[in-house]
């Protein structure tokens, strides 16, 4: 097992660091856009499967981290005031 470690093939292919450096936003086909209609209720934050949405406590608006958002548009579909729109990713 020691020699396996030296070659950096961690047992079970587990990687002993965060996957934060692996940005996945480029997978997006559609880009969700938060408009001024946002009431900061946090529904999208709770339902985002990748944890890329946070409600900014100062502005009380949802903010999307486009480094990781993959454009699944669940946020757009769950928004109770239809504050999230989509556009085609360029």
């Amino acid at each position, binding site marked *: 097992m020691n020699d396996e470690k030296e070659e950096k093939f961690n047992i079970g292919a587990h990687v002993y660091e965060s*996957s934060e450096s692996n940005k996945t936003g480029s997978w997006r086909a559609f880009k969700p856009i938060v408009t001024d209609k946002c009431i900061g209720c946090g529904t999208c934050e709770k339902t985002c499967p990748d944890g890329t949405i946070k409600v900014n406590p100062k502005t009380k608006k949802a903010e999307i981290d486009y480094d990781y958002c993959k454009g699944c548009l669940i946020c757009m579909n769950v928004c109770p005031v239809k504050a999230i729109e989509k556009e085609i990713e360029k």
Partner: protein
Amino acid sequence: MVKKVVEASQAIAEALKLCKPAVIAAYPITPQTHIVEHLSQMVADGDLKSEYIRVESEHSAMSACFGAACAGVRTFTATASQGLELMHEILHIVSGSRLPIVMAVANRAVSGPINIWNDWSDAMAARDCGWIQLYCETAQEALDTVIQAYKISENHEILLPTMVCIDGFYLSHTYEPVDVPDSLNGFLPDYDPVVSIDMKNPITQGSFGTPPHFQEFREQQYHAMNRAKRVIKQTNKEFAEKFGRSYGNGLIETYNIDKAKHIIISLGSICGTIKYLLEKDNIKDVGLVRIKSFRPFPEEELREILNEYESVGVLEKAVTLGIGGPVWSELRGLTSKPIADFIGGLGGRDITLDNIREVFDKIRSSDTGVHWLGSKLKGDYDD
């Protein structure tokens, strides 16, 4: 130590009461067995402090165990037949992620036609999923093997999941006297996970293995499975020291082989019937080799034994269409001695004493063919 008259399903549940898995996930309906029924009762009664997750399918049962094992706790599930088929893809993910999950499989046929009775088709079809497979002969052995399985799987040199295979109905639903230990008496150390969830030190589990890396991870599993032979033998020995019971050398068990000229090889509970017949008929020229560990396959031990005898026969409750029986096809490469194959007991058909007497006669005649025990098909099958 308390002697209880229980079915193997309850014997396994009693073993888990001692091993204390943190998470048990199971799907409760057919082809599920009483194992998880007993476990859910223990949890409900407060006798077992496990998180019991009643999931909506076997695929989810194994997925829940996978998630819990990733989080760093001891886990358990049980299944059989179609249930094992449904969790098939997760079996690979668990072993590839090197998570030491232990699962009881009450071996049953796989449909169709629809059949829920005993044979080994389910586990044999899962042969190449990277799980250790240990086949038990008795309810006592089932209890003892579950305890050993955690010790083997969780060994940091191994880190492979284990299936504890018991014959459906013949063991799972049959009552036998079983010694239930009061405690494990230090035999099984606390689970020391290699990976766990730590919010302060995030790691990545379930990562990609791209072409430059993937093959090496399989190669590591291959070596770990080979190392498991030594660890299984060692664990069998340590278990004997603590509890006074052992099963051959842990990988195989021999019976009546000293004066024998011929060998019959089999797995599981039918070996009890074979032992009974050898004694009842006072047979000296046939000896039994019971394979307990089908994965890893005890190649060295079997090669040594097979070459000492005139002829060999395999009695097995599974078939791999296009070759013969899965056990027979593995053994043929180990010796130049005649090896015959006897496929029987499929879908729960009884293998009778007369069937086994027939098998002995065929082995004595140095037969090398594939035979279907008690076939009712008429006419020639000249294939």
